[in-house]
């Protein structure tokens, strides 16, 4: 059984449009203008049990709306949806026992009371008594010292680690993470990623991760779903994404002596390479490789055999971030 199975999932909102000016405001009192917006447009998603999937898209692309439908908060306008075998909206109480959710921007802990009390209440809410799992999560995420502090006194990183524990207290088979690492420092991020990997490996927890931080996705997910204006524009492996869109590796060279650009261009005439020169330091050159047909070593061996005096070199891969930026820009 797939953890998530969505077919032609659609959500429309009625947006109220206000008219301009004072007379407009008066007219609005009696007759309102509504406009229908399609936030998610006939999306098909299928995620097998145990997979970690990154869900990305620009602000307003419809990510949060999708997550809200998948978690049963919003009712889809149309389409088929089965999550963990349930209809999330209509079988809510049964369904939500099988999922965990972390909203990076909202706390699910009780603000004014100690963290420990929230955990106890959640254990009662989910009717579980698995102190061993809880103790282990507390240890791995290193929050033992925070347990008796009220949530409002925690730092963002401390709170987020507690949120994670809270969302996994009932050992759900499916975990939704909506921007869990927003505003966190590198160490906390690494700690959280490590923890998520462990949970996935040990309990086979399916994880759907929404984020703007692509390093999260690189660190955790093998598959990416990309959303734009309510439509899925990419669904597949991260490596494939890089191959398809990630053209243009770069080689930065520092030479022992100045060489003219024309000379370098002649040397690599046979290969699809363009050269550029650093304006400030005339010994620095950059070779941009086009497509995936040529490797860095081919270029380098050609240069070395032609006697170009290379002092230092650096090969720059295209980052996922750049790829995604490119996709967003090209729409």
């Amino acid at each position: 059984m797939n953890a998530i199975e969505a077919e032609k999932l659609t959500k429309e909102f009625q947006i109220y449009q206000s008219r301009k000016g004072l007379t407009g405001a008066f007219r609005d009192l009696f007759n309102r203008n509504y406009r229908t917006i399609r936030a998610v447009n006939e999306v098909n998603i299928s995620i097998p049990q145990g997979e970690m999937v990154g869900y990305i898209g620009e602000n307003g692309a419809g990510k949060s709306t999708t997550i809200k439908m998948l978690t049963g908060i919003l009712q889809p306008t149309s389409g088929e949806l089965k999550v963990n075998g349930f209809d999330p909206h209509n079988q809510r109480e049964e369904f939500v026992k099988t999922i965990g959710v972390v909203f990076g921007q909202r706390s699910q802990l009780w603000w004014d009371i100690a963290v420990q009390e929230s955990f106890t209440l959640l254990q009662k809410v989910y009717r579980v008594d698995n102190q061993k799992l809880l103790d282990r999560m507390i240890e791995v995420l290193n929050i033992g010292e925070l347990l008796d502090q009220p949530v409002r006194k925690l730092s963002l990183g401390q709170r987020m680690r507690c949120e994670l524990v809270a969302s996994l207290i009932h050992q759900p088979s499916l975990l939704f993470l909506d921007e869990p690492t927003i505003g966190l420092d590198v160490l906390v991020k690494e700690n959280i990623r490590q923890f998520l990997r462990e949970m996935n490996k040990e309990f086979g927890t399916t994880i759907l991760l929404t984020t703007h931080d692509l390093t999260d996705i690189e660190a955790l997910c093998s598959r990416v779903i990309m959303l734009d204006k309510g439509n899925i524009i990419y669904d597949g492996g991260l490596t494939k994404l890089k191959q398809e869109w990630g053209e243009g590796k770069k080689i930065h060279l520092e030479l022992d002596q100045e060489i003219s650009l024309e000379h370098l261009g002649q040397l690599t005439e046979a290969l699809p390479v363009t050269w550029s020169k650093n304006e400030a330091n005339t010994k620095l050159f950059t070779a941009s490789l086009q497509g995936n047909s040529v490797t860095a070593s081919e270029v380098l061996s050609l240069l070395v055999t032609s006697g170009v005096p290379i002092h230092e070199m650096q090969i720059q891969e295209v980052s996922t971030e750049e790829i995604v930026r490119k996709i967003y820009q090209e729409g």
Partner: protein
Amino acid sequence: MLAMYKEVIRIRFLMMLAYRVNYYSGIIIYSINIGAYVFLWHAVYGGKPSIQGFTAIQMATYIAISWMARAFYYNNLDREIAEEIRDGSVAIQIIRPYSYLMVKVFQGFGEGLFRLFLFSIPGMIIVSFIYPIQLTTNPLVWTQFLISLLFGFIVNVEVNLIVGLFAFFILNNQGILWAKRFLVDLLSGLIIPISFFPAVLQKIFAFLPFQAISYIPSNTLVKGLSIHQWLPAIGVQFVWTIILALICWGFWSKARKTLIVQGG
């Protein structure tokens, strides 16, 4: 299930304790309110033995009891629900395997119990020393009062839930919250006993749920109603409990369908 609601009540206790200053200032505000109304009515009576079936002492007792009962049944669930809807944190509640409204009811109950034991009862003892009031020692009347008070609490909570849920449809109901608060205080008989209103208004009030909140329990204790008088009164409270529960449920199912979680 029960363990969960017990825990909800416990958490609410802890939250109330986290805001101790509110608690202390509440005691002062309630004492001042009781004092003001006792002296006001003292002036209105001006030596007359009884008005509308209330003697001066019964009136003072009625005021003290009504305010102390209010400490028990009053809560801000309407505002909490409205706020949770407005800032979108209702989403967190919906992904929990419980009934949102029932948890709210028990949060209100936890708050009520906290105030009853740490506020109303000590407050009542203090007030009975200061003002000329007379409390019955008949345990049957007290039992009747407590049952009636519990129904008063439920009716008030239901009114709060309904008003709070309005936020689902209009997304900002600050004005309604204020109006409701004033209406409940006035029409429930907290400020003026229902029997003091003109006959026409009394007839209208009989069709509203508000007197079930305060007037019926307070009147039960002050007048020491006999069982024959008490049963119809509690019947009215019970009927309102059911009617309002149905309205709550209807609102909630409708609200869940049209829910738009704002922000994020």
